[in-house]
């Protein structure tokens, strides 16, 4: 059974930019037209009736999407790279931004036409497929055009700014997920803050513990083996179980030691969530630190020693800069992991974006669940992008 990666080579073709765009085009068309674009529900509890792109979006927007699609097809068919790249990029951007606009507009039209004021319009599978396919096409086009990474981030920020502009003008206000947010703005703001605080606190503590642990592991191999076995075991404990297991001991501890209670360490809430998240982050951080430092070529360290540098100077001027890319990669992975894990923390009273997920599950209001989930995903993507930029900025070796 051929995997996707071996699909083209097996047929004697290569994964060229053109082929990638063609695959994305096929997937985008199939999903976008075959799946529901939006869903219309009589209220926020009942399931929605699926509506296709042509049934939901107004003709002007369908035309806009068609124009973007045409540009992509032109780009995919063009021979010259100078034409193909920009055409695909422009077309994909139009499709990406246009799909959001079409969905927002369709929601407004449908809600106004609906009989009851509780009617809700939610985003369907077709919407997501088109958005993802066009985003990937944009990234592929920028890749093949050889646009530097920093400019790509800038392009991403620009697109995000356009969407933010649409949002500010109220174009998305009738989408169910935005309605859910609008109904509980304060709660959302504090949940988001709690979530970010939890992740940042866990990162700081995990770095303070994990990095020294990783450095120790490079020096003492026996300790390293034992420590990593324990940390790996901790990774296998399901997150909900770990949160639950910490409640008992922490309650006992905070009852026994009164000044811990006064400082805010309790069986439920922030403390057990923080400790669990730190435990989950220790393995990746310690492991990446160890690998990073072990990856520093001994010859370089030797040369530095030969130049008369002290142990501290070798560490700060040689080892750390060379190990930094690996460390930052580990940090990036851990941050994304933590944003996801922190969602579960709502179950033990630590708040955060997870509270919307569980409230939504309790009310069978899918859009409330999505509010929490999509916010967490976006947060993770932003953190990932930011840390990638940081890694690029900090990498000492430049490829010519």
């Amino acid at each position, binding site marked *: 059974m051929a995997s996707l990666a071996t699909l083209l080579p097996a047929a004697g073709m290569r994964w060229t930019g053109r082929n990638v765009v063609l695959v994305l085009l096929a997937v985008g068309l199939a999903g976008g037209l075959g799946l529901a674009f939006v869903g219309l529900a009589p209220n926020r*509890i009942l399931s929605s009736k699926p509506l296709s792109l042509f049934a939901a979006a107004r003709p002007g927007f369908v035309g806009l999407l068609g124009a973007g699609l045409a540009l992509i097809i032109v780009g995919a068919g063009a021979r010259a790279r100078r034409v193909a790249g920009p055409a695909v990029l422009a077309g994909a951007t139009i499709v990406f931004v246009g799909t959001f606009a079409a969905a927002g507009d369709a929601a407004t039209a449908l809600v106004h036409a609906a009989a009851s004021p509780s009617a809700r319009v939610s985003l369907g599978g077709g919407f997501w497929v088109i958005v993802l396919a066009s985003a990937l096409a944009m990234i592929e086009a920028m890749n093949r055009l050889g646009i530097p990474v920093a400019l790509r981030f800038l392009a991403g920020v620009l697109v995000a700014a356009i969407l933010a502009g649409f949002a500010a003008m109220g174009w998305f206000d009738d989408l169910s997920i935005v309605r859910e947010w609008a109904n509980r703005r304060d709660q959302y703001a504090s949940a988001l803050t709690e979530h970010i605080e939890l992740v940042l606190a866990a990162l700081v503590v995990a770095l303070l513990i994990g990095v020294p642990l990783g450095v*120790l592991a490079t020096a003492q191999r026996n300790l390293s083996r034992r420590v990593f076995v324990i940390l790996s075991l901790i990774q296998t404990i399901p997150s909900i179980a770990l949160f639950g297991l910490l409640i008992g001991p922490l309650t006992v501890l905070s009852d026994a030691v009164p000044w811990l209670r006064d400082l*805010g*360490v309790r069986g439920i809430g922030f403390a057990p969530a*923080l400790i669990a998240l730190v435990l989950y982050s220790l393995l990746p951080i310690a492991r990446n630190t160890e690998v990073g430092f072990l990856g520093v070529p001994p010859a370089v360290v030797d040369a530095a020693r030969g130049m008369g540098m002290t142990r501290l100077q070798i560490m700060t001027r040689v080892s750390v800069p060379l190990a930094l890319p690996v460390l930052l990669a580990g940090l990036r992975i851990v941050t994304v992991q933590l944003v996801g894990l922190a969602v579960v923390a709502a179950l033990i009273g630590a708040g955060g974006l997870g509270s919307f997920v569980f409230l939504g599950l309790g009310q069978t209001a899918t859009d409330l669940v999505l509010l929490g989930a999509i916010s967490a995903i976006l947060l993770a993507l932003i953190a990932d992008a930011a840390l990638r930029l940081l890694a690029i900025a900090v990498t000492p070796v430049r490829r010519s």
Partner: protein
Amino acid sequence: MARKVLGILAGLMLGVAASTGGANAMGDKIVVASKIDTEGALLGNMIVQVLEHAGLPVENKVSLGPTKIVRTAILSGDVDIYPEYTGNAGFFFNVDSDPAWKNGEAGYEKAKSLDAANKIVWLAPAPANNTWAISVRSDLADQNKLKTMEDFGKWVAGGGKVKLAGSAEFVESPAALPSFQTAYGFKLTADQLLVLSGGDTSATEKAAAEQTSGVNSAMAYGTDGQLAALGLVVMSDTKGVQPVYEPAPTVRAEVLDKYPKIKDLLDPVFKSLSLETLQQLNSKIAVDGQDAKKVAADYLTAKGLLK
């Protein structure tokens, strides 16, 4: 050497956990919590707003978590007030088979006296019975003239085409469906049941409203807000088979002694919440999607309960 380092690191972790969690330290504020469901959010927000309006220092921990978490929190003193159901006291103290729970007043008095041992005071309950019930699609109810559980029992026993969606706990717990069946003379076979794992009535009611897998009847709670919106009708428990679950604020005695005003502030609020009122308020949150904080505020202002 390594052990020393590990020891320091462990201490560091606990220290940072303590200091960063310090923002949540108790101090002198009254910590108000509630369960992480619709009614919990509503009642919790009402308590917060009433106390804050009267000038008391409040820390808002509404929608903290499921019952176990919130009850553990109040017992350990992490939380000072939260709304609990009188019938639940039977489960907390393992005396749920006692017939006193079937009567609203008797149940309340029993809960109050049992929890005195934990130094927790139960304030005045709301006259609304948020207990397990069986609800039926309104078209079905109209067709077969079903209003009470007796009608329902007779109709099922007489061969009525029924499929009930309920949680595993509801179907298996001797106090729930089995006691309905014994009292009203009917028995649901396995293919007349759709068992869901969680206790969420919104899921069961949604199934009945959309007739998923042929379901036309759903487990419900008395004060569910979405029943009317989903076209479901509750079969009234005329024989009083189920324990009575009336919501009441539970307060730590220590905090009540410090702020005795709490009783005078909360009693009129809870006494004003009838079954219909709670259903309407819950419906605004669950069906219309309004924020519980706003629904609570609008209600309290309209009733002039904010002093």
